[in-house]
């Protein structure tokens, strides 16, 4: 019997918590998963890539820091160097900044990077109430601000063939179903990313997938979303390829080019801006795939990934609406979903035959 009596305090059950589960670790994992792609970006595009990435991260971090300092001052708190809401330690701003940086063309002026970064995190995250409250993915918002405001400034490196400011995907846009594109960008190169123009972080499907594997092992993302997303784009492109008599290169080309891998693995899976149940996440990934594909082949823009993500971000609340949400699949919903998949393929094919 001991003499010292500890204080007995009261709490509510459960009294245990899962070890190794924490939000900072989850965000940090995304950053770690992106490291191969980041190094490859710097290797392929040189110092400009490094500057772009640093600028995007710093712009978001500083904005968040200043924002919370001002908020604290307004609430009459005394100045602290590290205030409690600033989320450097939980990596969410670093993660957004890094993803945003990687989506940018290598010729983007740094002031454009910084300005859009500041606005992106401010409008998409801070004004909504900070981490966990945002509806839109800050990285995607920042990226779209660049497209909308500074499209002519943010251009791609002139590549060997002298196609000015084009990505593999925008080449294809000029002539919808020409296998010509393969002469410039063999599938294997698209997969590894060697010698492929494009936004600095999106060129190497291989390295992005590698990071995805890491996230899957760490259970730091919902793998159903990228699987559905990429799978949907693949299936739709495959349907078109069959209808138009194109080879397997066509769907492969679709999934390896443009920002699909980057967007599907790292942006669409942001848990804060995606639905909360398993079925809804599957539907969400599917919808992203359809929208991306439609923008790609019918839209004026070569790239549908960030737009589709922002569009679907708006519908996340409907997926999660309490009257329709369901944590498990059931037969009826699955049948409806299969019907919708078939319908989407049909609509795409009809659309393509008119466009062609």
């Amino acid at each position, binding site marked *: *019997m*001991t003499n*010292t*009596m*500890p*204080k*007995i*305090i*009261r*709490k*509510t*059950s*459960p*009294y*245990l*918590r*899962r*070890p*190794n*589960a*924490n*939000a*900072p*670790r*989850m965000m940090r994992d995304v950053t770690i998963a992106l490291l191969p792609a980041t190094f490859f970006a710097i290797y392929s595009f040189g110092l400009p890539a490094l500057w772009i990435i640093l600028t995007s991260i710093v712009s978001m971090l500083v904005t968040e820091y200043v924002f919370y300092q001002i908020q604290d001052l307004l609430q009459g708190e005394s100045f602290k160097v590290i205030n409690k809401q600033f989320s450097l330690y*939980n990596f969410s701003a670093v993660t957004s900044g890094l993803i945003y940086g990687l989506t940018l063309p290598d010729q983007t002026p740094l002031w454009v990077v910084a300005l859009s970064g500041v606005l992106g995190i401010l409008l998409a995250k801070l004004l909504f109430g*900070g*981490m*966990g*409250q945002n509806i839109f993915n800050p990285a995607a918002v920042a990226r779209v601000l660049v497209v909308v405001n500074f499209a002519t400034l943010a251009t791609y490196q002139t590549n060997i063939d002298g196609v000015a400011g084009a990505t593999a995907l925008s080449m294809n846009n000029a002539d919808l179903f020409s296998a010509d594109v393969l002469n410039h960008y063999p599938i294997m190169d698209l997969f590894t990313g060697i010698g492929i123009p494009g936004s600095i972080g999106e060129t190497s499907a291989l390295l992005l997938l590698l990071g995805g594997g890491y996230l899957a092992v760490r*259970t*730091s*993302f*919902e793998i159903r979303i990228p699987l559905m997303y990429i799978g949907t784009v693949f299936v739709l492109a495959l349907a078109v390829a069959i209808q138009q008599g194109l080879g397997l290169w066509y769907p492969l080309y679709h999934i390896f080019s443009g920002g699909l891998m980057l967007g599907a693995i790292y942006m669409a899976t942001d*848990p*804060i801006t*995606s639905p*909360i*149940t*398993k079925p809804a*996440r599957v539907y969400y990934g599917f919808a992203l795939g359809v929208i991306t594909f439609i923008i790609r082949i019918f839209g004026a823009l070569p790239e549908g990934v960030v737009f589709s993500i922002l569009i679907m971000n708006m519908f996340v609340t409907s997926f*999660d609406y*309490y*009257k329709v*949400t369901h*944590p*498990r699949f059931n037969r009826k919903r699955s049948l409806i979903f299969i019907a919708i998949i078939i319908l989407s393929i049909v609509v795409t094919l009809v659309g393509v035959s008119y466009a062609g």
Partner: protein
Amino acid sequence: MIKKSRKVRDYKELTRALPTQTYLDPETVYIHLQNGRCKTYDLYVDEGDHVDFGEVIGVRHGGFFEQPIHATISGTIGKIGKKLHRTGRKVDCIEIKNDFKNTYHKTITDRPDHVIDKLDQDDMVEILKQKALVGLGGSGFPSYIKLATKETINHVVVNAVECEPYLSSDYRLILDRPEEVIMGLKYVMQALNCEHGMIAIKADKNPLYEVLTQVIERRYSDLNIEVVRLGNYYPQGWEIEVFKNALGIEVPHGELPMSYGVLGFNVSTTAGIYNAVKHNLPVVERYFTLTGDAINYPQNYRVRVGTSIQDLIRQSDGYKEDFDEVLVVMGGPMMGVSTVSDDVIVSKTTTSVIVLKNTEYKEEPCVRCGSCVYSCPAHLEPVQIMNAVKRNDKDQMKSLHADRCIECGLCAYVCTSKIHVTDYVRKAKRLIR
């Protein structure tokens, strides 16, 4: 951390392999006169009276049933005092001072086997009623009401899953007294005229499997009793989950298992049924786990009902000196109730007391990872219920079926952001009741 997670670290290694310590002769015992289900009582004894072991000293009144109160030692009646009950309220308890003579009351006589063989459902129900048998796993529901069912029962399941971390009293009970469990099950099967019995254990509890199968094969091979090994996840011990995994019978929310032809009893209850039928004994003792990371010698005990937990903590060499703040939890660490004092007693339904060091978890904003939704055994969306509570939107709480929550604690356990989600869901349950 987006993951369906039902693995809960179980810490059973602290006590599982240790022999059960017997502590049957405390100086005094305190018997609850009230409990969660019974608010009023009549007492047949006065201070200074002498009582025998197993004697009826009063009766508790529940809403729709009565429950005799038995003395669990022989000795003299002391004062009525207030003690904390598991429910967090102070309830009346009567003291019995041990005379260490252990004189049995005359009603405590063995029933010969040929008499037992002729007992039918009504006789058994009457015995359980007289002996005040209740769900000893913690539910406290009167067993005779369960046993009196008029439905056809095809399967009787003994729940020995004990999925809460830290707990190993059921484990020790089976190792020490497998026959009582099997015989108890036999009696229930006899009462219900049921052909199929089942003992459900966790898959990783091989010793239990071996003990039970060997005893059944050698001595009870005429009975159709199966030992099934269920998954190692939490809350596998939830009755609905046991039925689903052991028998493939899904009992929908709000319906009684009996209408699906199955009936479940906790192992301690089953052993209690054996003692009631065979020895005409009320529940006078139980297997009890006293463990946790803030106590010196975690241990399983065989104790009298009414033993003071302070006594037992002393038996286990007291609290560890390393911690300033501890939690004293009655029941398991996932669903148990934390008390403000260790001045509590072992009642029929207390399976365990866990003494834990107080850990403060740093809460982050919800990142909507969905782990709580993936993991909820009742298929709810805890995070959405939490948001509805924050907005005080009762319609939403109802539509999200917050009332179906079994308070297993898994949503808070798995939460990536260490949010106490379970508390919010509990609040929702209260608000929409």
